[in-house]
């Protein structure tokens, strides 16, 4: 019994999210341009009570409320940035699906570039080293081929697969 209570105590109830479609016609704004902006913004905001979805995709009630909030603020005249800033001021950078470019995410954004440069550098050094190294002698010195061997060689070359 205590274990159950402990588990419950540690749990926090969340308005149960379920996968499914999300945007309801009743939420949608009449102005198509504003609605399009709202959809775009929603696609970039993370549903904080779901496992890994945007508020546009999520069925959770909190996600719906956030969608409505986005639309209300757009209708009130907020710019895209102002809407996003408001949500971030409540929930932190966690709510952005595209991580912001900040000091804390420098490694993230520059990392791939760094890896590309390392790959290019690695290839460069590989070719340099292998050109400097002397050619290792072939297994056996080449000998003249007989006619039968020549024919077989020609056939093999034709068949040679990548």
């Amino acid at each position, binding site marked *: 019994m205590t274990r159950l*209570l402990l588990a*419950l*105590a*540690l*749990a*926090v*109830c*969340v*308005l149960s999210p379920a996968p499914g479609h999300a945007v309801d016609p009743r939420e949608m704004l009449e102005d198509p341009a504003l609605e399009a902006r709202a959809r775009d913004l929603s696609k970039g905001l993370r549903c*904080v*009570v779901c496992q890994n979805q945007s508020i546009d995709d999520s069925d959770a*009630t*909190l996600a719906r*409320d*956030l969608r*409505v*909030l986005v639309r209300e603020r757009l209708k009130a005249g907020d710019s895209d940035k102002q809407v996003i800033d408001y949500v*971030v*001021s*409540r*929930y*932190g950078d*966690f709510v952005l699906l595209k991580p912001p470019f900040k000091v804390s995410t420098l490694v993230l954004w520059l990392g791939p570039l760094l890896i590309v440069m390392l790959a290019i550098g690695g290839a460069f050094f590989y070719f340099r080293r292998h050109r400097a190294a002397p050619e290792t002698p072939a297994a056996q010195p080449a000998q003249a081929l007989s006619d039968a061997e020549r024919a077989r060689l020609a056939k093999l070359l034709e068949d040679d697969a990548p």
Partner: protein
Amino acid sequence: MRSRLIFIIPLALFLVLAVYFAVGLTLDLKKLPSMLEGQPVPAFDLKPIQGRDDKGFASTDLKGQVSLVNVFGSWCVACRVEHPFLMQLKKTSDVPIHAIDWREEDPAAGPAWLKRHGDPYALVGDDPRSKAAIAFGVTGAPETFLVDQQGVIRYKHVGPLNPQIWKDVLWPLIAELRKAGGG
């Protein structure tokens, strides 16, 4: 001359990764740190719930004394677990506990729940559309905020309140705030 160093790099990278994983296992993913600790309470003005009084609950009510703001809902099982402690708190301490009744589909559900489980709250606001909840950055219920005399949020607790948290964190903080500002 091949540098043996290159062959050690994969192992070294992996060991760094393993350390991060080990630390990661100790972290709690669900916990979102509060953006609002140290910030003034966001502006809100909620209507009262049915059958209680007609005062409602607004951000302006949170000035002048140290108080708690508890987010609950009749649909929330963990709130039921927390509630007896809140009832006890009302008896044993003089810190006012206010509430945001969050996301009730049926306006009568919140009041019925309070009637059944007890009502420790001073002011209760009805928040059917999560307006106040979002302003507070709430992600689930129950959550409790400690607000000081100037209306600044000092602490956010996610999950049910329990005697341990009260004794170790909240009460010392309240005492400190009162010493500094009174009330």
